[in-house]
């Protein structure tokens, strides 16, 4: 029973030897020092802690470590190394969609999931895709716009 939990973190195989009941969010921030993953509520309500698990959006505060065994976990630190990130980042920049920035790592990962599902998303598909990621600063319009720009500029990437 003392084997570590083996999973891939931002492409690297790792083994976590702590409790399977630990929160993924805490482990990412404390053990692996991936502090781009933010904590805004610790109860699944804000999306600041969003990560990708096998390419799907998940709130890392709502995931126990045992759940990610043999999975691929991607945080903003890993995602920011991709070409898709660059397109999204530039699109966010073009409309100044980043204000305080606290929701943004989560928003960008949510944006990735919107585009992965709908390479040419409608505005409603975008808004639905962001609906679990709260942003108190922007009013969301700029973020929606950024995703539309990314869809256009990143034609073929998703």
């Amino acid at each position, binding site marked *: 029973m003392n084997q570590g939990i083996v999973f891939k973190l931002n492409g690297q195989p790792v083994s976590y030897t702590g409790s399977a009941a630990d929160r993924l969010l805490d482990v990412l921030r404390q053990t692996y020092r991936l502090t781009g993953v*933010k904590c805004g509520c610790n109860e699944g309500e804000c999306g600041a802690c969003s990560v990708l698990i096998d390419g799907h959006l998940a709130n890392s505060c709502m995931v126990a470590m045992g759940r990610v065994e043999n999975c691929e976990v991607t945080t903003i630190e890993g995602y920011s190394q991709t070409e898709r990130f660059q397109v999204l980042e530039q699109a966010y920049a073009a409309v*100044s969609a980043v204000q305080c*920035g606290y929701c943004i790592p989560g928003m*960008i990962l949510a944006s990735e999931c919107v585009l992965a599902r709908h390479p040419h998303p409608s505005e409603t598909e975008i808004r639905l895709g962001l609906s679990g990621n*709260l942003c108190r600063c*922007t009013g969301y*319009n700029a973020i929606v716009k950024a995703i539309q720009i990314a869809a256009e500029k990143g034609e073929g990437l998703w």
Partner: protein
Amino acid sequence: MMPISQSVIKKDHLAKACGQAMYVADYDTTQMLQGLILRSPHAHAKILSMTYPPLPEGYFTVDYRDVPGINEVHIVKDDTPVYADATVEYIGDPIMMLVGPDERELERLLAQIEVNYELLPAIIDVRDGDTAFFDYHFGKGDMDQAWAEADQIFEECFETGYQEQAYLEPQGLIADYNQGKITVRGSMQCPYYVHGALAKALGLTPDKVRVIQDVTGGGFGGKEDYPSILACQVAVAAYKAKGQPVRVIFGRREDMEFTSKRHPSRCTYKAAVKNGRVTALDADVIFNAGAYTTLSAVVLQRGIIAASGVYDIPALKVHGAAIKTNTVPNGAYRGFGAPQTFFAVEMLMEHIANALDEEPLAFKLRHMVRQGSVTSTGGRYHFPVPLPAMVDEVRKMSDFEQKRQVYARQQTGTTRRGIGISLWFHGAGFTGSGERDIIKAVTRLHKLADGRVEILASQSDIGQGIKTTLCKIVANELNLPLDQVSYDNPDTDRVPDSGPTVASRSLMTVGELLRRAAIRLRSQWQEGVEQTVEEHFKEPDFVIPFYIDKFQGDAYPTYAWGVCAVEVAVDTLTGVNEITGTWASFDVGTPIDLNIVIGQMEGGLLQGLGYASMEQLAADQKGRIRNHSFSDYIIPTAMDVPLMKVQLHVEAYPDGPYGAKGAGELPLVGAAPAYMSALEQALAGPINHIPFSAEDALKLIRQSRRA
């Protein structure tokens, strides 16, 4: 559009987008101690005794006896204790802090602390309050005559609820005491407020106090005064820890339950009407201050100065009071008292118009102030008032007239539609002479030998983009590329006090100081030499001096203006409404960056719409805040207001940089009345409180069905 308005990539964009920006909770904690605060479970009680459990090595307690300076947090009046000594005044009043390395152990130990209380009578409902922390009166014109000659008198009471800032990053600070000097860093709007508070509580000279702002995940006023309180608490702990930093990061619950919020209000208005015109207004404005004064004085001042809205009313009598209750102290929130009074006066004007059988918008337009009109405090609107043009813009964008007429007809089926419009201003910068007499802002530009220039000021970028806009101004005057001008998060050891990041003042006031500094630097520019220039605030000449004791003079040098239309559809089966469109025009002067300003407008507008409806927060009968999580305190998601169109109307202000005036707070201030006016049309009944729930709507539907 001026070239300076052209958007650039924000200075802090990339670090935030890729998750590298360091917020206070992101620092490595291995060398740090954690602090956990013990709070009062009673709304009002005397502390008889406290018993601490035996503590393991490395753990210690901090309470009022450990405060080396004065046990008061310097804000405006200094009645907030760092740690409660004799009494506790609200549920959540901090009594002591337990400090140690392990959070779970701290929780376990905290539960073992015994405090004996003698319960005292508590005032929870503001209507039971008997202590006015602040009580102001002012007015103009001949009230008696207006009353005597009136055709009709209207009287109505309006209520508004709490609003929680709900910044995504909870409050948090780290304190470190080393070699006689205290350093506090973290999430905050006003490093020098924190600086002043620390010097007093720790009994240190200013040079022994250092405050550093870290990247801050939103503030909206919530990080204006509160960090001063938390900073003193954490600093006292660090003082005792001698050498080891102490960190306190709030969870969402602690943050929502115990930090400051927007003041709930009760505004009772009386209006005299003669020949279809409001001739006099009597406004009685009551704010629930909570247990300590914190910022209530200044919030109330701004609120009551706006009591007559954008209307030119010859006779005015205003009374404002901030009443003490044994509940969490209320403080600053974007708008700073004005959303409360604007809700009241806008709804009052709607209701009078309805009673006179006139279209509310036409009625409002007939009463509007214009350039040269006298303000509520006997000052002047010195500059053009662009409201009529803005109203036209919004009418067009929203197809207002057409919709208003259609929705006025009998509606059938289970959907009721309505559209409403509101008009407002926001006084730019500090109220009254605060800027001149209290803040006395100083900024510096530091030019390096290689020609790069650094801005030295104490403004915090909390998301509003001030880092970028200030750099744009300086780069523009110096003809430098933007990357040659930098602005770091303020560190009081390095930057002068250019004042707090509040009151929509940073860009208008500090931006103008920096623009002037840049012009001076340009005229003195020497290649290859390090140079510094300094600039001090000077009040513009046209300003009529303001006297706060009489509420007389120019409360603000100029005003930002807002017009907003909201369209709703209400489901008569459930009372749930949907905002089907929002259109607004804002005048904040010249936008120093179009994207940034639009972002402020959209974000603020959405907060204002939330305030009016879904953002319900209440204290229970014992005075405990019930809504303390994001599942219980509901803020808008990306789905809630899909159609929000904002445009800018530019009325340049000669004393702001390139014509800019205050922007940050404006969009929130008058959103609620537009929304409620739309609901009134849809529901065919009067609304006089916010937040307005689906349940309230259903009640109104039932009433109008009966009628």
